[in-house]
């Protein structure tokens, strides 16, 4: 296990895309120390910015990187990783696990925006909250999260699962606006409440909201009421109103909204 902790607080963003089990594999501490990364517009060595300790010899398949301390300015940790494990104790910056293909990231703290950006596989678990654009692609791109799982035990911000094409995002508490915007496939499960406009522009996939929703977009039509929804073989108890949309995009995505928590949506039952 390699343990990294910042030597000082960072004032400007640090692009730590070299902090990944794929790159650390079969490298000695000396080699790891010599990895290059950018702090603002200055190129530095990993050992300039982080204190590096090696507690145990790594085998390629089970490389574990542990990060500790204030990492709020550190971006792109675990970018493109395909194996191994990263654990983070503390808050961490943007683009954590960007384009990751496999392996596991565990965060004991909060994460900034673009968690699991364009993710293709693997698993990310966050005990705290995540900011906006969970699983979303880079600006302008339409290649969202393809596969893998993101589990957030706290809240998440706006546009969770933007342009999502597959995989699963679970949020145990509340999410912001536009959950599942432009979604093409995959599943988003929100145990808490959701702000407005869930599923805007979605063409396929599932968004399940177990808490309160202020309203459902007028471009969604109600199908029926379901007692429960199945995700990954697990049953989420309902009952749920099931909507289809976004019709403005000729979509056939499914939006499930809890019936018990949303008495204001009762008028939809007239259309059944």
């Amino acid at each position, binding site marked *: 296990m390699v343990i990294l902790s910042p030597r000082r607080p960072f004032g400007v963003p640090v692009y730590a895309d070299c902090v990944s089990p794929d790159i650390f594999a079969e490298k000695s501490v000396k080699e790891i120390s010599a990895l290059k990364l950018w702090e603002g517009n200055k190129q530095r060595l990993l050992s300039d910015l982080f204190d590096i300790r090696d507690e145990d010899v790594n085998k390629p398949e089970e490389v574990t990187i542990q990060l500790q301390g204030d990492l709020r300015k550190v971006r792109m940790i675990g970018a493109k990783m395909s194996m191994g494990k990263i654990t983070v104790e503390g808050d961490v910056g943007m683009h954590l696990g960007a384009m990751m293909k496999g392996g596991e990231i565990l965060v004991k703290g909060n994460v900034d925006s673009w968690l699991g950006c364009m993710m293709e596989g693997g698993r990310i678990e966050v005990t705290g909250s995540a900011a906006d654009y969970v699983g979303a*692609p*880079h*600006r*302008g*791109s339409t290649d969202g999260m393809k596969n893998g799982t993101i589990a957030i035990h706290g809240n998440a911000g706006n546009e969770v699962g933007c342009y999502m094409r597959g995989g699963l995002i679970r949020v145990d508490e509340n999410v912001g606006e536009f959950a599942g915007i432009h979604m093409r496939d995959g599943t988003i499960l929100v145990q808490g409440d959701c702000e407005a406009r869930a599923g805007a522009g979605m063409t396929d996939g599932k968004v399940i909201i177990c808490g309160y929703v202020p309203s459902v977009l007028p471009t969604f039509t109600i199908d029926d009421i379901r007692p429960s929804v199945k995700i990954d073989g697990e049953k989420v108890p309902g009952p749920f109103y099931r909507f289809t949309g976004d019709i403005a995009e000729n979509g056939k995505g499914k939006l499930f909204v809890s019936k018990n928590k949303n008495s204001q949506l009762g008028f939809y039952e007239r259309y059944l």
Partner: protein
Amino acid sequence: MSLLIKNGFVYDPLNGVKGEKMDIAIEKGKVTDEASKKKAKIIDASGMVVMPGGVDIHTHIAGAEVNAGRLLRPEDHIGDVEPKTTVTRSGVGHSIPSTFTTGYRYARMGYTMICNPSMPPLEARHTHEELEDTPIVDKATFPLLGDWWFALEYLRDGMVKECAAHVAWMILATKGYAIKIVNPGGVEAWGFGRNVRDLDDPVPNFGITPREIVRGLCKVNQILKMPHTIHVHTNRLGQPGNYLTAIETMRSVKDLARGDEPVVHITHCQFSAFKGDDWRTMRSGAEEIAKYVNHHSHVTLDMGQVVFADTTTMTADGPWQYTLYELSGNKWINHDVETETGAGIVPFRYRRKSYVHATMWSIGLELALLVKDPWKIYLTTDHPNGGPFTTYPKIISWLVSRKAREKMLKRINRKARKRSLLPSIDREYSLEEIATVTRAGQAKALGLRNKGHLGVGSDGDVAVYDIDPRKTDLSKDYRIVRRAFEKTAYTIKGGQIVTRGDAVVKPVAGRTFWTDLAVSSCLGTDPCPEVMQDLRKRFREYWTVEFENYFIPERFLKASAPIAVKPEM
């Protein structure tokens, strides 16, 4: 500083040099007979190919349209980053690279002169500012005049001379180089949500047909004695069955030709060479177009080759861009430029497995191979519409090697492969023909006397490619060809070494060419009172820009290179 490029195999088709071992001497930025031997810096080009600097007749590299494309596509930037060095600036972008990056990448491929073919006259200032920021290469830009209200009105009323006076003023005002016509009449009709169906379909509200516009502007071009012909993007571009429109457009100006001089350049011809009634029955019309071009000398073409890649399409042809948007469902930009023209931008991915895209790929190569005379067709991708200009080496490898084409054929859509004419074509380009389609022919078509060749007095622009024509079988070793054309061993611009392999060593500034019409008292800087009065009145009525602010003075260009022309008025 003088330079002596020694022992290279020189390909200079304009001067009839076909791979002979020669020395090229450059002094004070010009090719000379003999450099002052003592001081000359010697470049050893033994075992290498020496060609004049490349010329690109059609590439969208600057202006409001390109810039809007850059804004539209941040995802195009993130994967293609050019870091700064001690002499160059950083930049980003794959299909629409930033200005500096564009200059560096062209120079690395041995290009030293590029033409930005569509500039809305209103955006001329912006375009020139961007061109100025495109280092190393020389530039020229063509204002869009085919849908300009006043040109349409004059031509409708048969007032060709008055139209010529206005066009001359516009060329001078925008510091343009040639007359560009995009979907004549159609772009204007698009302002009303319509398009023109063919050459004889009148433009709404104007009552003029595209045929009259093309013919009228062709006459104007002759009156003004412009160095380049009219540069035409045909009607119905990108619609199945449009090869007939393309041929009809060429035919419409046939009688205006004098002698063997070309009078019309049909640009990105691949997009205008579709047969069939709809996308399912779409086929290649390359054979018919090539047949026409082979039998007539008043036409030149450029390929507009499609490369299977993610790119950004952008043209002034609004209705065509709308069709692309409908096909792809991508984000898009649609723009109307006041009384002058319009524009559209759509990101697009050409896929090997798509029947239509694969057929388009095949059409471009068929055109290049079936047109017998390489002086009549030039290598372009209509950057970035068919693919970024950085894919030229790939296209060169397809042109020189049947094997390379067959390898790609195996990977494309099966139906497209079955219908492609490529398996029946054995022709393979020689290096001399490559030099023609990438530099000499283009320079000739543009009327640039000092570009595209290495005769005494020409500009000291040279590309030295690391490929030995004695040892390399182009057809078999097409990979070597591709790699050689991806980056030169040396690119020399104006007698200075600007790139060496991957490295840009001296990013000199390039010049901007424009046509300086030596106008009589009736034109230009001091035009006749009627023309001037008319223009002022129209500016007040229609434009958002004041007449006084519209004209770009020569001092606005940092490196102005006027080409003096005396019109026959």
